[in-house]
């Protein structure tokens, strides 16, 4: 049993380890180890295409995760307090957002927004004052942020709601008994208790958005995110530079994930 478990762990971690190992390879060939070097990291970080893609990915991840965790937390708090049709509708929306495959979300956003923009652009051009180039709505960073935020909001609502339902009800009741206004109860009792869940939701959302390929592939227009860059490079062949980028991407996700885990654990202990 122990041997079996060890084998599965090796299966899970050897591929990641191999990528990391070969990213420090001094040789030009991707599959022959020839001494230690960090030159491929230097090369990746000096590649303007990589840096542009990285910048796009970071902006998209930061903005989507912020919107998703703030609006998601707001919705989760409201949903905790209500019953009836509104809650049923939201439960359905969250279920659909999580269930529908990413690829279908990507397609739907692509053709939905392109159709909408085709209608809006002539209207904008018509009302735009003469002499200036009218702005043209098109697929790009904003459409990607909007699509990521939609999906991640569902994720954040689920995470914060789980924390809220695990919360001891007597805490808010005690606060009300001590004549705190609902707002004061929220600020001094509820918010501190769900805050770790909100931050964890933010970190998970950031990781997801940063790593997402399939939605971005459809929705990013002419923008290139880091996963899109990596995907098109892989198609051209395996290079040590990709190993270096991959190792950095995995490293960043690992740090964020461990932080999210610790925050969720701590939140769990506090609310009991």
């Amino acid at each position: 049993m122990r041997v079996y478990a060890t084998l599965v762990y090796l299966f899970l971690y050897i591929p990641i380890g191999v990528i990391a190992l070969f990213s420090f390879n001094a040789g030009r060939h991707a599959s022959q180890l020839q001494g230690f070097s960090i030159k491929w990291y230097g090369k990746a970080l000096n590649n303007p295409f990589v840096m542009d893609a990285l910048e796009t990915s970071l902006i998209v991840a930061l903005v989507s995760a912020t919107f998703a965790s703030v609006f998601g937390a707001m919705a989760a708090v409201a949903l905790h307090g209500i019953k009836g049709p509104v809650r049923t509708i939201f439960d359905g929306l969250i279920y659909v957002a999580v269930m529908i495959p990413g690829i279908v979300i990507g397609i739907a956003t692509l053709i939905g927004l392109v159709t909408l923009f085709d209608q809006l652009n002539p209207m904008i051009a018509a009302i735009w004052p003469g002499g200036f180039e009218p702005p043209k709505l098109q697929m790009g960073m904003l459409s990607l942020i909007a699509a990521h935020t939609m999906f991640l909001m569902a994720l954040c609502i689920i995470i914060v709601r789980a924390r809220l339902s695990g919360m001891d009800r007597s805490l808010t009741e005690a606060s009300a008994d001590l004549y705190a206004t609902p707002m004061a109860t929220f600020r001094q009792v509820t918010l501190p208790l769900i805050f770790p869940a909100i931050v964890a939701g933010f970190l998970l959302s950031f990781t997801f958005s940063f790593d997402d390929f399939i939605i971005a592939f459809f929705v990013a227009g002419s923008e290139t995110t880091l996963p899109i860059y990596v995907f098109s490079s892989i198609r051209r062949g395996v290079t040590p530079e990709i190993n270096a980028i991959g190792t950095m991407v995995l490293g960043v996700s690992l740090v964020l994930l461990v932080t999210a885990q610790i925050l969720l654990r701590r939140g769990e202990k506090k609310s009991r």
Partner: protein
Amino acid sequence: MTQRTRNLLLLAPAGAWFLLMLIVPLSVVFIFSFGERGPAGGYVPALTLEQYANLPARWAAFRNTMILAPTGTLAALLIAYPLAYFLAVKVSAKWKMTLLVLVIVPFWTSILIRSYAWIFLLGGRGIPALLDWIGIEGVRLINTPFSVLVGIVYGYLPLMVFPIFVSLDRLDKRLLEASSDLGARPWRTFLQVTLPLSIPGIATGCMLVFILLMGEYLIPALLGGGKVFFVGNALVDLFLQSRNWAFGSAVAVTLVVVMLITVTIYMRFISRVGGTRDDVALM
């Protein structure tokens, strides 16, 4: 401001976002699936079932998905179950959480990079080169159904382990003691007590993995080399290469409908087995 108004205000941004970025786009896909392809690609409004009648043209993609998604799910289950059992029953409380987190963490890292690792390992200079060295020659692994299967198991194993672990961890250990006190051999206790009680976890894990596999694109694209393709690959082709939006929409709608049917059957199955449904939170 009443409680109710405040709640509705709090829900407004999320509601508007879901409407604009989920409901409207999905409705557009549904409407477009009854349309026609424009002369230069894109969409021309129409009300026809032509696109659905044309679905057999992409039969190979559906067939591959319907073969490899269940096979991959089953393979993941067979590998995941013993590990979940080990973590839930055999490991001391002190190490349990750490070891579980170590299983789950890879799932939340880039599937792109993790699949890429297997191009590296299964490619000509990876494992085949090693096999060559020990005397087994001419093995080709990459761009075969096998390599896609390896990628699937590798990518989704954590998702399978977690729900099974939860159901086994909740299992009352006294039942196992009772069974052995009554003279049952260990394997009999497993077959008659442990396994039936972990069915909800198995079902949840299989469903999660199966649903995600139905929409998979990256793993077949990277490890199948254009020979082993899924519905996801057909969708990318239809929307980004041939720009046939009407037909692509019909394929997408069909994919979602097949998924919904599967989920419904699963719900029936679960309620018949009578297990409680574990709510799955991956973190």
